[in-house]
């Protein structure tokens, strides 16, 4: 019996399935985000320490989680390409890079906008902030490497997969930076041993926003994968057309 990944190995089947799934995923993400924004602006109380600035956390925290998840998608896809040669693994890795970079940028910018009123500074060279900045540069590096090897997509895929797997070492550093070093950034308050340290009136809007962001991430990733499959079809048909024209020209010359 075929596994799900084996069944999805056929790009045509993936296109059919994703075409059906994408509107549902996007709609559900939009609904959750709308509900999350309602909770954020009309229900959630101000935090006893942060005041209304806690509202920034409702987008900062999900963006930071997805910045890391985006890289996990790249790492798993890279593994799938290098070890199993799954036909869609490289498509997935390539598609996830700009989306992960966008969420990392959002985490950095919203963090800076929260830091100024709370810490008195937009930026500090704290282990958590610095490691997330490195993650952002890793995303840019992956995209730059692929772009530089545009003439040879197969080689670009393999080399970015190697870089993607090497770079995954930054994820535990980000996750545990607040435990390993004395950082200004607060320690984990949701995903921690002993349960969340946040009151439910703040936790619920945060989790609803996180769920909406996560579904949006997967919707964007599916769309980007569909685009990449179409781009590869265009490329192969263009090459076929050029070869056909060359054959015709050669026949005419004879």
């Amino acid at each position, binding site marked *: 019996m075929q596994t799900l990944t084996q069944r999805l190995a056929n790009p045509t089947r993936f296109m059919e399935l994703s075409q059906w799934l994408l509107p549902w995923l996007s709609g559900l993400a939009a609904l959750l985000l709308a509900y999350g924004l309602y909770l954020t602006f009309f229900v959630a109380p101000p935090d006893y320490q942060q005041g209304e600035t806690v509202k920034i956390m409702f987008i900062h925290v999900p963006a930071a989680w997805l910045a890391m998840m985006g890289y996990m998608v790249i790492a798993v896809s890279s593994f799938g390409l290098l070890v199993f040669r799954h036909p869609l693994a490289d498509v997935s890795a390539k598609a996830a890079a700009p989306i992960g970079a966008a969420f990392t940028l959002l985490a950095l910018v919203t963090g800076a906008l929260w830091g100024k009123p709370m810490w008195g500074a937009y930026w500090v060279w704290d282990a958590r902030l610095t490691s997330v900045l490195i993650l952002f540069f890793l995303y840019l590096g992956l995209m730059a490497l692929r772009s530089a090897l545009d003439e040879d997509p197969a080689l670009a895929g393999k080399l970015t997969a190697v870089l993607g797997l090497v770079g995954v070492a930054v994820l535990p550093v980000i996750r545990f930076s607040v435990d390993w070093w004395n950082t200004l950034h607060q320690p984990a308050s949701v995903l921690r041993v002993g349960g969340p340290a946040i009151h439910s009136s703040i936790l619920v809007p945060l989790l609803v926003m996180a769920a909406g962001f996560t579904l949006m991430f997967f919707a964007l990733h599916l769309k980007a994968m569909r685009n990449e499959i179409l781009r590869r079809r265009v490329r192969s*048909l263009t090459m076929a057309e050029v070869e056909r024209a060359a054959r015709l020209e050669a026949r005419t010359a004879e």
Partner: protein
Amino acid sequence: MELGPHAAFIWASYGVNALVLGALIAWLVADGRLQQRRLDQLEARGVRRRSSAAQAGPGRRTS
């Protein structure tokens, strides 16, 4: 809606969020349309994928 003394930081955060994600969505939609248009143009010129040609049945030209 009263957002206190740091309202500008809150609105800026949500504004940047909307801008970045809006740009990402717009780019993905535009890119998808561009690739589909290119594919349609190639197929209109008679260049076909092997799977499409096979589905169309025998007698059709394959690329």
